């Protein structure tokens, strides 16, 4: 879902750039306040894993592929702020080094994939994990957060394209939603797989906002 240069009009990409700079500054402040030693290496490992997994496009219907975005996965393990920072780091390297996602569109890509993926994904995940406070709640929450965050991110992406006059709203919104409803299933499968594995071998690595709320 990485938007290349040229898809977004100047008002859209400048405003998403400004918003993303502000958002990342908030995340960095929050991370600094709660940064525990154990989370530092996990941030490196999650960035590496999500970068690698994003290279692995899987086929979905009709000559289209999708790949993990990783926002929900990062948030389940690192929480919303460190999770968003890790996804932003992956996006910055992809943009500058690999020409995946445009430099002008970097703000929009951070908004869609990092803020909606990790931030939005975390809210969805916690809503479910709080109702059902056990392993199954974590897994179901991660699955729903993965799927829904990809679908919402694709909607945001479509709105940015429509606002830019790149494609009309009534055309680009249903098209983007239609394909990402399928890609989101892949996101949910991978996220659930990794979260289940971590729950089995190192359950203490799952992010816990308050000690009394976790097992």
């Amino acid at each position, binding site marked *: *879902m*990485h*938007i*290349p*240069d*040229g*898809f977004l009009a100047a008002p859209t990409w400048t405003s998403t750039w400004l918003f993303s700079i502000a958002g990342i500054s908030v995340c*960095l402040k929050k*991370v*600094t306040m709660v*940064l525990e030693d*154990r*989370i*530092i*290496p*996990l*941030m*490196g*490992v*999650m*960035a*590496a*894993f*999500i*970068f*690698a997994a994003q*290279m*692995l*496009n899987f*086929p979905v219907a*009709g*000559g*289209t*592929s*999708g*790949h993990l975005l990783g926002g929900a996965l990062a948030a389940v393990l690192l929480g919303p702020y*460190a999770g968003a*920072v*890790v996804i932003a*780091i992956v996006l910055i*390297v*992809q*943009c*500058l*080094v*690999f*020409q*995946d996602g*445009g*430099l002008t569109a970097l703000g929009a890509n951070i908004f869609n994939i990092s803020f909606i993926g990790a931030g939005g994904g975390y809210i969805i995940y916690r809503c479910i994990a709080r109702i059902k406070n056990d392993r199954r709640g974590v897994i179901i929450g991660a699955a729903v957060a993965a799927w829904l965050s990809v679908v919402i991110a*694709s909607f945001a*992406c479509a709105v940015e394209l429509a606002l830019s006059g*790149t494609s009309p709203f009534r*055309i680009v919104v249903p098209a*983007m939603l239609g*394909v*990402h409803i399928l*890609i989101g299933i892949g996101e949910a499968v991978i996220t659930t797989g990794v979260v289940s594995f971590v729950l089995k071998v*190192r359950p203490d*690595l799952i992010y816990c906002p308050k000690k009394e709320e976790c097992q």
Partner: protein
Amino acid sequence: MKKRDVLFGLLTAMLLAVLFSPFASPWPDGLEKVAEDKGFLEKGEATPPITSPIPDYTWPGVDNDGLATAVAGAFGTLAVFVFALGSAWMLKRE
């Protein structure tokens, strides 16, 4: 997180990038496909404002496509690991 866990995680990521990335689906991703179908793909084909050293995950100068992708993947995985770890360290020191 123990050293062993970090090594395990990093190694898993490296193996994914090196062994599996050459076999990733070559089909366009969701956004690219929509752009193709709805006729706005060419808007993204202008010269980008910056030149990336390793465009499209293909290590320059390597003839074999699969190998070029694997090398680019290994480099990128290490690069984001160092970048993320370094950023976290800097934040901690503040």
